[in-house]
């Protein structure tokens, strides 16, 4: 039990959380029909005869979705089923055209797996129970017409994987950390566009509470359809507190489905177990079981990327980058790709690369309201700039000017430095002459410094920078001044 939890629930209580995350797979077509699966089209523009459940239509399985599910399974060290099968989940709802959802029951594609999350108490492993493929339902739109509910079937049949965790999280913060860890996986795997607003990644949270030390789980309530990291934390905390209050006042938690109202920050009952559907699962006779071959699995394994945690470890250990910097870069796919590409081409140390990228370069991106993926500066050109910095031919301050200039002009750093005479003065004899001259022409300041006024040192540095328009190599300047002012 960590600090966070204690501050949320009354002393003596703990919460137990399990998540079911729905990940929409980023495939061209739907799970069982050839209709486009993309988001945002005009209502009912992406509906095949099958999606509308016309009599006589039959599902034809989308192999890409299976490949994506396998890839996900491998990324969480899960067992991939040698034979996987679809089942029907039967219930009536207007946006469920067939009267059943094609899902998976006893032969899910992904079996037991695990993922590591960061908690305030350190690293923690959360076990994944299973992940299965299923089709999404359509959308009921209740607020468009006064008397009617409108149905949009564009979403009907789009492919999802539902990732089910064990009830192993004990705070809303942990739940969010777990959700983020899965989010990072699926977006880095290239199987989900990660768009939270569009519902590409959403989650149901199973929340129960129990007295500290109790072994058995309390009765759980399920909070449906949470699609923001912020809301899930608030919703879970709210629900757990509601349950504690209920129990302490002598009541009982009933197993039910609840909806979270973000505006009011409260959950309300959607349906209780008594009137819950009996889904009458049975194997879908329209779809034969699928044999998953070792070749199919290996093909997906070959496509697994390096995940941010591993990347971060490599950055900090092999490249000696500060942990904070390594984390920022490693978790941003585009940034880390750019960073690593440049690193492969430059003589500069990775630490300098990271600092400049997250410092001056990031500031430039910010000013331009742009992203690294849209930068007009190629990673190779950026590597050239890093080389100039590493050689000492320009300072960080000049480098900031140069990178801005590169953005505007498209020229390389070398060309800009040369044409604008920005190279640092690193010529020892030239600098030495300049230092002599400054000392000779400021006798009273020299006297003051030598009398113990250390602050006067910066006066001399300033004089030299002024005369060289900032191009004097600062390290050499400092060394020379120290020597000659002794």
């Amino acid at each position, binding site marked *: 039990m960590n600090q966070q939890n204690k501050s949320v629930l009354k002393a003596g209580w703990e919460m137990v959380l399990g998540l079911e995350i729905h990940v929409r797979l980023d495939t061209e077509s739907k799970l069982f029909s050839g209709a486009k699966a993309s988001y945002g089209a005009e209502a009912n523009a992406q509906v095949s005869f099958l999606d509308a459940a*016309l*009599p*006589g*239509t039959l*599902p*034809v399985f989308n192999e890409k979705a299976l490949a994506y599910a396998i890839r996900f399974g491998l990324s969480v060290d899960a067992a991939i089923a040698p034979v996987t099968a679809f089942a029907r989940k*039967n219930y009536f709802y207007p946006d469920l055209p067939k009267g*059943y959802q094609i899902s998976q029951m006893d032969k899910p594609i992904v079996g037991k797996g695990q993922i590591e999350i960061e908690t305030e108490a350190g690293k923690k492993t959360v076990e994944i129970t299973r992940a299965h493929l299923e089709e999404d339902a359509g959308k009921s739109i209740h607020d468009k017409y006064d008397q009617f509910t409108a149905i949009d079937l564009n979403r009907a049949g789009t492919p999802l994987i539902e990732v089910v965790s064990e009830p192993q999280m004990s705070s809303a913060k942990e739940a969010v950390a777990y959700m983020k860890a899965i989010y990072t996986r699926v977006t880095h795997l290239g199987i989900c566009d990660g768009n939270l607003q569009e519902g590409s990644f959403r989650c149901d949270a199973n929340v129960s509470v129990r007295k500290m030390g109790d072994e058995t789980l309390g009765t759980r309530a399920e909070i449906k359809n949470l699609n923001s990291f912020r809301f899930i934390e608030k919703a879970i905390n709210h629900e757990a507190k509601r349950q504690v209050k209920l129990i302490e006042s002598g009541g009982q938690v009933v197993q039910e489905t609840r909806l979270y109202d973000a505006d009011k920050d409260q959950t309300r009952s959607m349906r209780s177990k008594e009137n819950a559907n009996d889904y009458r699962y*049975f194997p879908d*006779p329209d779809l034969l079981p699928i044999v998953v071959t070792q070749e199919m699995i290996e093909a997906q394994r070959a496509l697994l990327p390096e995940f941010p945690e591993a990347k971060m470890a490599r950055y900090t250990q092999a490249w000696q980058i500060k942990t904070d910097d390594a984390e920022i870069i490693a978790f941003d796919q585009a940034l880390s790709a750019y960073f690593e590409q440049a690193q492969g081409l430059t003589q500069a140390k990775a630490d300098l690369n990271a600092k400049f990228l997250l410092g001056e370069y990031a500031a430039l991106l910010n000013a331009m309201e742009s992203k690294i993926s849209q930068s007009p500066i190629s990673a190779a050109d950026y590597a050239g700039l890093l080389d100039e910095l590493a050689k000492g031919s320009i300072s960080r301050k000049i480098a900031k000017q140069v990178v801005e200039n590169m953005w505007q002009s498209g020229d390389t750093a070398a060309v800009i430095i040369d044409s604008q005479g920005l190279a640092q003065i690193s010529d020892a004899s030239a600098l030495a002459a300049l230092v002599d001259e400054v000392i000779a022409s400021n006798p009273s300041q020299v006297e003051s410094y030598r009398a113990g006024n250390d602050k006067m040192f910066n006066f001399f540095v300033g004089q030299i920078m002024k005369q060289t328009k900032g191009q004097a190599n600062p390290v050499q300047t400092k060394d020379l001044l120290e020597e000659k002012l002794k």
Partner: protein
Amino acid sequence: MIQLSIREMAAMLRAKQISVAELSSLFFDRARAFNQQTNALTKVCCDISADQLIQAETMLAQEGHVLAGIPLAHKDLFCTQGLRTTCGSNMLKAFIPPYDATVVSNLKSQGMITVAKANMDEFAMGSSNEHSAFGAVNNPWDLTRVPGGSSGGSAAAVAARMVPVATATDTGGSIRQPAALCGITGIKPSYGRVSRHGMVAFASSLDQGGVMAASADDCALVLSAMCGHDALDSTSHVDAQWSWQLPESNSMKGKKVGVVTDWIDGLKDEAIKQSTLEAIQTLKDQGAEVIDIQLPHAHLAVAAYYVIAPAECSSNLSRFDGVRYGHRSEDCRDLEQLYVNSRTEGFGEEVKRRIMVGTWALSSGYYDAYYLKAQKVRRLISQDFAAAFKQVDVIAAPVSPEVAFKHGEKSEGVSMYQADVFTIPASLAGLPCLSMPVKPAHGLPVGLQLMGNYFDEQSILSMAHQFQQVTAWHQAMPEAFL
């Protein structure tokens, strides 16, 4: 003309002794004229459509398209683009599909002419064709009797030669039993041979499209054109393409025919028993070796079937909810009422009964005891057949324990379900099987069932064809329709 085989009609078309339009209108006229007595058809087309005529003429101009210009009826659960497809139900009484079933388009592409849609038991559930929202179908041999079901319309239409051939479907006997009761030939192919795409589902793991005609040769020619792998049906077999080879002689020498003695001994109707034994004797006379076999679990088939088929049907028919198409109740103030009233009004009694049975069998707590157990029985029955086909090439059996019964004679439900006792085992095993006419009993048609090994349609059709070369039962027609 109406008693000619498909090959004979094709020869006349090719020789320009008759035109496609003339042949079609001959059957259009018969279909219209006899539908009042038989009620075999839910829809008779007014005319041959231009595109079908062009297709037929084009195919005829080329060699080797024996089906070009041959009229047919489709059972009214094959979706026909622009042509109402009712499934014999009020639920779909106004449903006009926007696409053709694969079976329909396959036969269209061979130049066959759609003359009519055939009546049927509602959603293919029934063995008497009394469960149709469009009225019961009458058996052309005796209009007071049922034609069998569920493909009773297809069978009656062929028996009265309102069409020379009709498509049909068989889930537990829906082709074979009406074929037997109407004195025609009908084949249910192996599961996976014919695409189910566009065939409105009753029980997906059992439904199979097939064909009914006067003779085995006619059936085989049409089946060759209907079958084939279909990417739109995941249960369609990749090697489903098949082409009928006429047997070289009438000799069955070297062929082993298995007979389940218990089944024949158990027949209560002596006349049917005699017809069956005589037909088996004819096979023997043609050189076949007859061997006694056992199907130890077959007696469990009806019970297993009436769990599996309703279970699948309860789910398959969920889409008829009044929301997107089909019957919608006028009397609905909320969603619950929309569902309940639309389905209550749209479905007939037998369909409702099976939906309820199936829903119950799949319910939490009952699934293992019923659905799962039924699937285990199904596997045992398949294993029985696999063992039998190690010994024999074909299994001969009765089709129906009785001849066509009178309308209203049977109470609904279980007593009716027993009519399927000989047809269901092969359905559960997904095997090809046919019914062909043998000597009548009580003045009414009797069929003999031939069951083959998986994907061995050739053996049962060859044997039926050879039988029909030395017998004339399949050529008999009810006098009123000559």
